[in-house]
């Protein structure tokens, strides 16, 4: 087949919303875009272990400690699937890790914000996992097979985490005055960064259009952001917390909530590396990687010796 035939076949698969599989021919730009996106997603799971991991040692009940530990463990598991999905595109986990540690690939900016109280564990579950789910549910139907299938499993677990986070906040809101204040303070910090998780506004999202054409993405940033706000506002009311946006109000005409404009300069700064925890998160990851080098070397040496024997 000529390249033109291959391309026609690829386009046809995309057009009928079918899956591309690892052995299928694909345009180089599609492959590169997917690698970038899946890797960023995988890195986000791994870096995302840190802000919540920060509170495992201080979980205020054994039940919550078990829930949090299991959740952070799930994130490591998600990282594993996603690195595997990415490896089907012809790049190794080791290479991907180097790209992360070298600052050549990104992870979700939300993890560059600190966790400052146990309420943040709940808020991350409710808002951050909530936003992630809005982003990810459409990805279950993404055009690349291994990615879509990984997302199905991940989304199921994320929904579970989201409910657990919301339930923690609910329980805290039924607790003491101090606990309610912790929840409100936490929501105040995480609300705007959560909105930014959907990326810049559509007019400034240069890669979005192509990703949508390829069926990698199914909805625009602003559509997903709106969907998240619409889902979340009623939950906040049930919870009894105030969302820190004076412009937030129901628009009966649009049948959506209107909301304020996130501080896009802040998002740019965080993406550029000047967020509150960028340096800390990467340094933590790099230290774990470096500290583990002798173990990985030992495992390799042992495995090779076994082959020789």
């Amino acid at each position, binding site marked *: 087949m000529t390249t033109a035939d291959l391309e026609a076949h690829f386009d046809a698969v995309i057009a009928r919303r079918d899956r591309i599989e690892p052995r299928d021919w694909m345009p180089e730009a599609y492959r590169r875009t997917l690698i970038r996106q899946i890797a960023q997603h995988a890195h986000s799971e791994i870096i995302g272990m840190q802000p919540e991991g920060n509170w495992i040692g*201080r979980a*205020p009940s*054994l*039940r919550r400690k078990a829930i949090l530990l299991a959740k952070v463990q799930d994130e*490591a598991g998600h990282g594993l699937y996603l690195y595997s999905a990415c490896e089907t595109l012809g790049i190794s986990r080791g290479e991907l890790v180097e790209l992360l540690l070298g600052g050549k690939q990104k992870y979700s900016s939300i993890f560059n914000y600190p966790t400052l109280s146990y309420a943040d564990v709940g808020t991350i579950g409710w808002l951050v996992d909530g936003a992630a789910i809005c982003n990810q549910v459409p990805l279950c139907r993404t055009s690349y097979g291994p990615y879509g299938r990984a997302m199905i499993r991940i989304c199921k677990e994320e929904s579970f985490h989201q409910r657990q986070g919301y339930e923690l906040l609910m329980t*805290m809101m039924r*607790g*003491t005055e101090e606990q309610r204040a912790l929840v409100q303070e936490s929501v105040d910090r995480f609300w705007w960064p959560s909105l930014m998780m959907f990326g810049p506004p559509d007019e400034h999202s240069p890669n979005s259009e192509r990703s949508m054409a390829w069926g990698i993405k199914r909805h625009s940033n602003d559509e997903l952001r709106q969907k998240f706000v619409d889902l979340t506002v009623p939950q906040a009311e049930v919870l009894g917390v105030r969302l820190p946006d004076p412009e937030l109000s129901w628009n009966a005409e649009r049948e959506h909530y209107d909301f304020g404009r996130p501080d896009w300069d802040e998002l740019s700064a965080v993406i550029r590396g000047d967020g509150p925890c960028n340096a800390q998160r990467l340094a933590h990851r790099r230290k*774990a990687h470096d500290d583990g080098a*002798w173990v990985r070397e030992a495992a390799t040496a042992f495995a090779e010796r076994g082959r020789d024997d």
Partner: protein
Amino acid sequence: PLEHARFCLGLADDALILSQRLAEWCSRAPDLEDDVALANLALDLLGQARLLLGRAALVDPAVVPVLPAGSPVPAEDALAFFRDAAAFRNVQLVELPNGDFAHVIVRLLMFSVARLELFQQLLSSADPVLAAVAARGVKELAYQRDWAGRWFVTLARGTSESRRRVLAALAGLWVHQAELAEAYGLSGGAVLERVFLAGGVAQPDSVVRVGGRGRDGMHTEALSLLLAEMQVVARAHPMGRW
């Protein structure tokens, strides 16, 4: 019942404190697979701790610290978060600060071998709850022992650096073997001997050390620092709901 509650408490505290140490590894393991495995072991031990703390509280409610009237804190959390170091009954081995990956492997190996042997006996305990805990625990501990044992051999036979480290960890931790063996009534070291043999490592000489026993409430300097972190949020909210 006092005796039995204490017995449960010792087993519970061992699991709780080692679980806390294992959880400190979270996001710090040499590879993702190890991160998942260590979290798994921490979760298993945390589960054992919760069942055993609950059992101790039921057998002898007097072991549970008294909280302000109306506090919704359940017994397992009162025990975990509102006792001071001297009231903990864990063996000293489990509270020692984390070292490198060789350290966590050697500690897990020593611990799981001793605990598995005791849990196998507890399968026929007169206390049905304890027997049930043991039934679940033996599977978890066998996995733990196998995982640690495989890594022990891998490190011992991997590179000269990994061998140096595993020997150093063993030399440092073995002084706690006598206390562990006493607490668990470890009858022999057949399993350990086999692992050491597979790793080409000589079993260290046993040492009689001064320093009291964790089962009597005597601990190292590390425990109170561990508890300062572990208990800080719970103690700040004695009337809190979580």
